[in-house]
């Protein structure tokens, strides 16, 4: 976990640990409260919010796990996130390739246009997007959300991918062309496999962005059957307002996919999100 270089004099790190522990408690106590709270009946929760439950009651969790709507929302979120990712990364890779490997008139203009998209807050466009999706007949349709998310994901993805494609030496490309590769062949068979780390980074970005998106599904989906998890959570909170423990159980279960993904793809996730930010 830690590499100790040379032999720097050992300092007393206790104060640092104390600070880290306090900050850690600030971060983790709310989550623990939710996890444990889900095992309590609501009336116990208000008197004893943080302690262990008197009896571990699993009904809150099993009720949620037994409800179709939770699984449906999980599926909807997954479906939308995966398609958004594939679309965003696919389309951006093509464009990034052109921006990186072709010199043509108007290239910088187009590229600037895309990068300017980074500065448009999503919220700015939500009303007209609603109006546009309405005229395309895409309201209530998962593709209304997927296409829009992909469109807003383009700028960042293109920038990151273009940067990576550029870093691949021209010799590789020349060799490929001599071997008889078409531009698409080079892109598909050589560039993309080489760009795997960058692709992973942007995919993670698109996936997490879509997974957490709230505003867009909020206005696009009316029918309960197409709700994503964030919409479901909000509605669940309204519907079971008086049953705090049950809401906590729902929250915890809704957290699991994101936290699980984080546990598995921590390196890419952190790298991607911070790289995305500094690139943005």
């Amino acid at each position, binding site marked *: 976990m830690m590499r100790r270089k040379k032999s720097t004099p050992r300092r007393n790190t206790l104060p640092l640990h104390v600070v880290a522990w306090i900050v850690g408690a600030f971060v983790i106590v709310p989550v623990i409260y939710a996890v444990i709270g889900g095992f309590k009946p609501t009336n116990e929760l208000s008197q004893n919010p943080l302690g262990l439950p008197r009896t571990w009651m699993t009904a809150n969790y099993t009720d949620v796990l037994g409800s179709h709507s939770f699984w449906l929302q999980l599926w909807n979120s997954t479906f939308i996130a995966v398609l958004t990712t594939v679309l965003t990364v696919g389309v951006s890779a093509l464009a990034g390739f052109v921006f990186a490997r072709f010199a043509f008139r108007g290239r910088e203009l187009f590229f600037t246009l895309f990068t300017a998209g980074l500065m448009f807050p999503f919220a700015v466009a939500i009303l007209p997007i609603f109006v546009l999706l309405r005229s395309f*007949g895409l*309201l209530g349709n*998962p593709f209304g959300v997927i296409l829009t998310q992909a469109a807003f994901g383009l700028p960042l993805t293109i920038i990151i991918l273009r940067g990576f494609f550029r870093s691949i030496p021209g010799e590789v490309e020349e060799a490929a062309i001599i071997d008889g590769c078409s531009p698409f062949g080079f892109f598909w068979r050589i560039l993309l496999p080489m760009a795997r780390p960058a692709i992973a980074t942007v995919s993670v970005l698109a996936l997490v962005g879509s997974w957490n998106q709230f505003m867009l599904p909020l206005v696009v989906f*009316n029918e309960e059957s197409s709700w994503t998890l964030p919409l479901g959570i909000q509605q669940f909170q309204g519907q079971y*307002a008086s049953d705090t423990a049950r809401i906590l159980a729902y929250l915890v279960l809704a957290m699991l996919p994101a936290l699980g993904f984080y546990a598995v793809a921590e390196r890419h996730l952190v790298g991607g999100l911070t790289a995305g930010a500094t690139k943005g």
Partner: protein
Amino acid sequence: MKRSLALIATAVLLAGCGSGGDKGGSSAPQQGGSPAKVTLEWWHLSTAEPLKSLWAQRAKEYMAKHPNVTIKATVLENDAYKAKLTTITQSGKAPDIFATWGGGVLKQQIEAGLVKDISADVAGVLPTFTPAALSAYQFDGKTYGLPTDIGMVGFWYNKKLFAKAGITQPPATWSAYLEDVKKLKAAGITPIALAGKEKWPGHYYWAYLAMRIAGLDALKQAATDHDFTKPDFIAAGQQVKALADLQPFQKGFLGAAYSTPDGQSATVSNGKAAMELMGQWAPAVQKDNGKGLGADLGFFPFPAVEGGKGSINDAFGGGGGLAVGADAPAEAVDFVRFMTEMGNHSKAVEAGGVLPVLKGEESAVKDPNLKQVATLLASAGGYQLYLDQAYPPAVGQQVNDSVAELIAGTKTPEEVGKAITEVAKSEG
């Protein structure tokens, strides 16, 4: 059942990838042979018992009677319901059947061509309804919905706490009311519970005071001349302020919701505040959210204001009805008729979920408080629908909003009048 159907519907939707348009409800019954399969989308907001189960039961019965019909219910809590309904109507469609309060909001939906004129379909049953219940859904002699509930807003109070503060009789005048609030405070009792986070409960105070001071006609006139700065309206605002200045509300009321564990309803239900100004559903929601007051719960109408143009007999409130989407199949209208049939509707009345909307249904009211509400309603001199439904959405929301600011003390009565006027003019 409902859930798994939703699941299938989604699967179809996802597989179709482009079927978003209509909801498969537009197929008309075929001539001859067995009737075509029809799915009805039904949106309502009865998330509290007893209605929640009763409505689901009715839908089941209807489906049993009509095997070709599937009813898919979407049940949302009040605020979410209003927001979602606005969104879907703006998207250019309406659910096949949806709960409505009538008034200006329904009118805007009618003008956008989203609501079916059901005059001809329901002509036969119209005479069975009380005219007061029906009026919110009729425009220019056409009927766009049938009522399921009608009621009025008034004070629901805790008799025990009133007695503890030495109040022997509920106040009949506004000045007596303010005195009683002071007495309650002096006795260490929180006089009023209010859901300040949701703004609609607060607007009841201003609306009632405007009715009592300016009179019903003034409110109707304001809908057309967009002027809420008249002295009588300002006076109503000043009285709201006078009440708010007594700091009668529970601690943290600005952030309180209506039906949460810390909310307005629960606060009264658990005896932590002496009263709330609320509609006929208050007892049901109280029971749902807290211990309930049982026999200690009482009702009194909003007091008269001395020298005001309105009378204590004028009632303010609303009920709820069912309207039918413009493209809905004929079965949707049939289901609305089914829901409001005497035999079916009176079950909901008996359970204390709604008040009578049909003539001769009064005897089904069991709860003494609700009986009182029904009697007051029947003898009401005039009737005003909730302002946030009677006026177009933007104006109604502004009333809610401005009154909330008045209660929070961030706006003066004059500023409130001006703000509402400005929005009303912008709708013009």
